[in-house]
């Protein structure tokens, strides 16, 4: 190790003044110290609670937590319930459509807004404002508009088109789609904002290059710009699936799961069973299923994305 440097009496590091060493230590440990409350909170309030719920789902808990072990009984009960499968299917329909339509409208709006049009600021604000409203308000407003006797249908009837029918809200086959309409209305503006931000980040010269290569504007967007927005798609998917899976307030305010249980979703299912029906264990089991769905969707997504990002480096 020690090579030909016979001279230079090396000062031991210990003689560095104490305060200075503290400062050094500070900069090394402060970051961890600063982060630790968050880490602790997340361990307790997220992972701790998930563990707690996981445990509850294995007990016979009814009205209140009860810690006697019941094995997987709650899960088998859950899978026996038609209503659970209805809500799961609804989540599939709602989630799929909601995400798809939000993506498409958000992207289209962003692309059109990106064409350096006048009024951009105003339009952007208009598309974005529904984000500001709570689902309670959104639900109330749409409930009213979609109500056949009060809203849209009545309006069109008043105009003389009596064949017009817009009764999805009260049609058990279609009710879930009204939730999609309201959800899209509320969230697509945010998606638009994300995409717009992404579009603004695309290198201008790529578009120029494609123009010189002879591509028309639609081709440029289809083949070049939109594929380049991949990371934004990822963020958008993340946020949208988050909204879709947790959608509770919106459904509650708009249809309350009705008519009947036809627009039920897992979030409402678990809420009712845990808190109204005194079947806490079953509710916990459904919550665990929800969580697992989230993970089943997210983990591959995150994995794919990080892999892609990793290779790009």
């Amino acid at each position: 190790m020690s090579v030909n440097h016979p001279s230079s009496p090396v000062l031991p590091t210990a003689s560095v003044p104490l305060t200075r060493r503290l400062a050094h230590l500070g900069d090394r440990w402060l970051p961890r110290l600063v982060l630790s409350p968050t880490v602790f909170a997340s361990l307790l309030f997220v992972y701790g609670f998930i563990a707690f719920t996981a445990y509850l789902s294995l007990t016979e808990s009814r009205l209140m937590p009860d810690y006697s072990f019941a094995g997987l009984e709650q899960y088998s009960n859950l899978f026996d319930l038609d209503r659970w499968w209805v809500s799961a299917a609804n989540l599939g329909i709602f989630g799929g459509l909601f995400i798809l339509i939000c993506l498409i409208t958000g992207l289209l709006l962003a692309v059109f807004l990106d064409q350096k049009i006048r009024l951009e600021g105003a339009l952007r604000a208009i598309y974005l404002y529904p984000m500001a409203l709570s689902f309670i308000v959104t639900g109330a407003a749409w409930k009213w508009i979609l109500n056949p006797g009060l809203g849209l249908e009545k309006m069109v009837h008043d105009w003389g088109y009596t064949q017009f029918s817009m009764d999805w809200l009260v049609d058990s086959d279609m009710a879930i789609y009204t939730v999609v309409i309201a959800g899209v209305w509320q969230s697509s503006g945010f998606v638009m904002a994300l995409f717009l931000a992404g579009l603004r980040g695309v290198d201008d010269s790529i578009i120029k290059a494609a123009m010189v290569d002879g591509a028309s504007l639609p081709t440029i967007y289809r083949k070049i710009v939109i594929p380049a927005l991949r990371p934004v798609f990822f963020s958008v998917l993340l946020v949208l699936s988050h909204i879709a899976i947790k959608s509770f307030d919106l459904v509650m305010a708009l249809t309350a799961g009705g008519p009947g249980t036809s627009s039920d979703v897992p979030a409402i299912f678990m809420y009712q069973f845990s808190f109204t029906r005194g079947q806490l264990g079953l509710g916990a089991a459904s919550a665990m299923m929800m969580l697992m769905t989230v993970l089943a969707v997210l983990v591959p997504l995150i994995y794919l994305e990080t892999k892609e990002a990793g290779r790009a480096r």
Partner: protein
Amino acid sequence: MASLSIRDVRKVYPNGAEILKGINLDIEDGQFLILVGGSGCGKSTLLNMIAGLETVSEGGIYIGDRCVNDVPPKSRDIAMVFQSYALYPTMTVRENISFGLGIRRVPVAEQKKIVDRVAETLQITHLLDRKPAHLSGGQRQRVAMGRAIARNPSLFLFDEPLSNLDAKLRVEMRAEIKLMHQRLKTTTVYVTHDQVEAMTLGDKIAVMRDGVVQQFGSPQDIYDRPANMFVAGFIGSPSMNFMRGKVLQEQQQLHFVLEHQGRSTLLPIPAEQAAAIQRLAPANGEIVLGIRPEHVTDAASARRAEHSETYSDAHHPTEVDCIVELTEPTGPDTLVFSSFNATRLTCRTHPRAAAMPGQPMRLAFDLSKAVFFDPVSEQSLK
């Protein structure tokens, strides 16, 4: 392949800024035109107008005699290489190169053949299946070039294609571009702010400033006979030295008076320039002497050069003593910096001739290659 003419072209951006103020340039089929100038002088704007990416405010752009003012980029039969390369990030190298071909409905088999040929020429065959993110700077540059060549356009446009590369690679790619042009003979417009690139690559150089072409000519012409002080200072590295001083007529010979540490040295001016100076110099007799660093050298090298007059004109360099302020050894030569009346003077000397900073040194001024300017108009006197 086509000639290119730019006639009285002006560009006013919507915000009212007049960026190009009447540009006139003409190059023949197969020539290599360099647009060079400082940042913001309008080079990219002009190039974009040739490409059709910007509208022409006034004047006309002709590619092979056809006015293309209103022709969209895709119909101009051009290819362009951008400073940032502008590779399509989501496509592989192969897809990048064949994209333009696909749009032009070249049959797939044909596309493949072209891509393979181009890739071979540029030695990027092993990269064809990679995405741009996985390429190094030099490789990206090659792909961008491949994309341009594949289409076999009649006009190549380059916007500072080398400025993102490091010094070493830049020198290599420069030679490759030149070789490629020699092989393909496609008319080319090349934007750069690097004067070495301009000198080495161009058949014709247009030196621009503030939307005006300052001089348009062959590299050697511009180097040897700059039209004004801007061009003289811009082209050549290290820059030309400028020294302000009077002229003095003495014994049939016109001299430039070099004031220096209270003394004056007379530098005899060669006959041809002398005539022009006498004709054009301002009344007070004050002019600017422009002399390139390689013409102010160490006395020994100068004397050696004098011995064999193969290339140097029959002119006796004048020797002047100075104090060295700074030396910069570049390897083959050493640059020596010194001051004359607060004007920094750069000389190019033999590595072993350079004195240490603070030491005196004898310099030889070879005025046969000097250029003289009017100190007010900054125009060359000739």
